[in-house]
C-alpha cells in the first residue's frame, strides 16, 4: 500500500484491491430458501398456507388418478371396479376424439399427415434447418389435402399446376411492374380455378388413377378437425393480417378505406355469427349449384376473423418503430417492399410476437365453436357420448381429456413464442 497519512488530503491508489468471495451466509440453498420462502413473518405464513393448498389439491387428485379404471363398458361397471376416474370411456371412444367419424381403415392417412407436419414446419420455425427444406413446406398443403380428403391425385396436382402457372406469370412480369405482376398472378389463379382446374383435374385423374378412398368433410372431426382448422387458419391469417396492417397505414386512400372497413366490420361481429354465415347464408349469396366445402368455408371465415385481430396487433408493432428506421431504409435507396420486408417487418413482428401468439391461441381455441354448426370437433364429440345411456353422467374425464389436448397445443405455442423472443433479442440492454 502507499504510505499515505490520515491527515493528508491527496491520495493516490497504487494497487488494485483483489476481488474477495461473498460471505458464506449469502450463498447456497439456505440463502435461497430464506430469501424466497421465509423472508418475513408474513411471507412465512403465506408459504405455509400455499403448501397447505397444494397438499389439499394433491390429496383430492392423486387417489382419483391412482384408482382410475381403464377397462369397463359403461359408467356403472366403472363405479363397481374402482372409486377413481373412469378413463374407460376415453379408451372406448378415443377414435372419435382423434378422428371424428373418419373411416377406421383409413386412420393411417391423418396420422401420416400429422407426422409430415413436423418436417414441413421445421424450416419455418427454426432457421437452423436448411432452407431448401422449404420446398417440402410448399408441397405440404397439397400432400396433406390429398391424404385427408382422398380422391385422385389429379385434383391436388391440377391445383399445384395452377399455382406454378401463377408463379411463372409473376416472375415474368415482376421486373417491369411488381404490383401488376402480383395482380396478374392472382388473376391467373382465379382463371385457373374457375375454368381450367376442372378439366386438368379430370385429365390428370386419368393418368394417376382413382387414388385414395374419398372422405367427406362431414366425417372429419375430433382433434383432426381442430388441427386442420387451427393450422390452416393460422398460416393464412398471418400474411393476410400483415397486408391489412400495411394497408391500414397506406397513403392510398381507397386501399386504406377497404382495410379499415374490413377490420372494423370483422372485429365488430361475433365469430359465431360469421360461422352461421359460413354454414347457412353463404349458399344464398353464391350462384346456385356451386358447392363449397363446409370446412373450407369455415377456414375462410376463421382466417378473416383472426386476420382482422392480427392486423391490429401488427399495427401496434409498426407504430412502435421509430420513424428513423423508415428514413434510414429510404435513404439507402431500398424500395417500399424491400424496406418493409428487410427492415420494418422483422422489427415490427418481433415486437408483436406476444400479441400475435395471443391471437393464435385464441383462434385455436375458438375452433371449438364449430360444434355449434354441427361439426364434430372434440367438444362436439363429447355431446353424443353424454347422450349415450352407457356413459350418461360422466363429465370430468371427457372435458379433462379435451382440456389436456388444448393445453398441450397452446402451451407449445406459448413456449415457442418465448424461444423466438429470446432468439431474436438483439438489443442487449
Amino acid at each position, binding site marked *: 500500500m502507499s504510505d499515505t497519512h490520515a491527515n493528508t488530503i491527496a491520495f493516490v491508489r497504487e494497487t488494485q484491491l483483489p476481488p474477495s468471495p461473498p460471505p458464506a451466509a449469502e450463498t447456497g440453498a439456505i440463502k435461497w430458501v430464506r430469501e424466497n420462502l421465509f423472508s418475513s413473518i408474513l411471507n412465512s405464513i403465506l408459504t405455509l398456507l400455499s403448501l397447505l393448498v397444494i397438499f389439499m389439491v394433491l390429496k383430492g387428485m392423486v387417489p382419483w388418478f391412482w384408482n382410475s379404471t381403464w377397462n369397463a363398458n359403461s359408467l356403472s361397471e366403472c363405479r363397481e371396479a374402482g372409486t377413481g376416474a373412469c378413463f374407460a370411456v376415453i379408451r372406448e371412444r378415443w377414435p372419435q376424439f382423434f378422428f371424428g367419424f373418419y373411416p377406421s381403415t383409413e386412420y393411417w392417412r391423418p396420422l401420416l399427415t400429422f407426422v409430415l407436419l413436423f418436417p414441413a414446419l421445421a424450416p419455418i420455425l427454426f432457421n437452423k434447418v436448411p432452407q431448401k427444406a422449404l420446398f417440402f413446406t410448399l408441397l405440404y398443403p397439397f400432400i396433406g389435402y390429398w391424404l385427408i380428403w382422398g380422391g385422385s391425385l389429379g385434383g391436388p396436382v391440377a391445383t399445384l399446376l395452377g399455382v406454378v402457372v401463377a408463379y411463372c406469370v409473376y416472375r415474368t412480369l415482376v421486373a417491369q411492374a411488381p404490383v401488376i405482376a402480383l395482380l396478374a398472378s392472382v388473376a391467373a389463379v382465379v382463371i385457373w380455378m374457375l375454368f381450367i382446374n376442372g378439366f386438368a383435374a379430370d385429365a390428370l385423374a386419368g393418368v394417376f388413377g382413382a387414388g385414395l378412398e374419398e372422405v367427406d368433410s362431414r366425417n372429419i372431426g375430433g382433434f383432426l378437425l381442430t388441427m386442420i382448422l387451427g393450422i390452416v387458419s393460422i398460416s393464412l391469417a398471418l400474411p393476410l393480417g400483415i397486408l391489412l396492417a400495411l394497408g391500414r397505414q397506406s397513403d392510398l386512400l381507397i386501399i386504406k378505406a377497404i382495410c379499415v372497413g374490413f377490420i372494423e366490420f370483422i372485429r365488430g361481429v361475433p365469430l359465431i355469427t360469421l360461422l352461421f354465415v359460413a354454414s347457412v347464408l353463404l349458399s344464398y349469396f353464391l350462384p346456385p349449384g356451386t358447392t363449397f366445402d363446409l370446412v373450407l368455408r369455415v377456414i375462410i371465415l376463421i382466417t378473416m376473423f383472426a386476420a382482422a385481430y392480427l392486423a391490429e396487433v401488427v399495427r401496434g408493432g409498426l407504430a412502435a418503430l421509430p420513424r428513423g428506421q423508415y428514413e434510414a431504409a429510404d435513404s439507402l435507396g431500398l424500395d417500399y417492399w424491400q424496406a418493409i420486408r428487410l427492415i420494418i417487418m422483422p422489427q415490427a413482428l418481433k415486437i408483436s410476437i406476444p400479441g400475435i401468439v395471443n391471437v393464435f391461441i385464441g383462434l385455436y381455441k375458438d375452433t371449438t365453436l364449430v360444434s355449434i354448426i354441427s361439426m364434430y370437433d372434440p367438444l362436439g364429440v363429447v355431446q353424443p357420448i353424454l347422450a349415450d345411456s352407457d356413459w350418461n353422467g360422466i363429465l370430468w374425464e371427457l372435458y379433462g381429456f379435451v382440456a389436456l389436448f388444448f393445453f398441450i397445443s397452446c402451451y407449445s405455442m406459448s413456449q415457442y413464442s418465448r424461444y423466438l423472443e429470446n432468439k431474436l433479442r438483439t438489443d*442487449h440492454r
Partner: protein
Amino acid sequence: MTMADTTTSSLGISDEVAITIRGMNKWYGDFHVLRDIDLTVQRGERIVICGPSGSGKSTLIRCINALEEHQKGEIVVDGTVLSSDLKNIDKIRSEVGMCFQHFNLFPHLTILENCTLAPIWVRNMPKAEAEEIAMHYLTKVKIPDQANKYPGQLSGGQQQRVAIARSLCMKPRIMLFDEPTSALDPEMIKEVLDTMVELAEEGMTMLCVTHEMGFARQVANRVIFMDAGQIVEQNEPEEFFNNPKSERTQLFLSQILGH
C-alpha cells in the same frame, strides 16, 4: 487557421455541378419552412450549414434526398431532376448517402449486415463482394473488429461511424450529414469528426448540418447560415467567422462561440 489551410481546402473542387436548388419552397401545412432556397454545390465542395433550431437546415438537406417533399422550385441532384417519380427518387437516394442524428442503424441486423444490406438488395451485388466492401469501409472507420456485433452493443460514437460506413458502402457521390454529433457524448464527438475530416480530405462532396464550428473551420470551404427558412449568409469559413455581415449571424455566432 492560416490562409494556407483555406487554399488547400479549396483544392479538389471541380467545375462540375453536383446539386442545384432553384427557388425551392416548402410548407408544413400552413407553416412556410423553406423560403426561396437557391443553392449550387460543385463536386468536391464541403458545405457546413448552421443556424438556430427551427431554421429549416435539416429540412433543407432532407429535401435533397427526398426524405421531405418540396412543394415549389427545382432540385437537381447529379443531373437527375427530383420529381415525384419513384424511380428518380430511388436513383438519387442510392447516389446520396445520409447520416442521421440518431444513427438509425437497423437493430435487428449485425454491423456487417447493416453495411451489406443496401449493396446486396439495391445494387444486386453478390454477398461476398458486398462483405468485402463493407469490411473495407469498417476498417476505414476503425471498427472492423465489431463487424459481427449488433448495434445495441456499440457506443454512440461507434454506431455513428458504422452509419457512415453503411452509407459509404453504396459508394455515394454526395454525403449528407444531419447533426451527426448532436446525440453524442463529448469524448465521442472527436472520433466521428475525425472520420468526417478524413472523408473530406478524400474529396467527397459533403453537406453537413452541424454546430461543430471547429470542424467547419477545418474542412468546410463554405459555411451557410440559415434563419427562419432562408439562407441569410454564406461565405468562406475564415470570412464567415471573423467578419460576419448580417446582424442575425453575428448574434448567432456570439451565442454559439461565446462560451
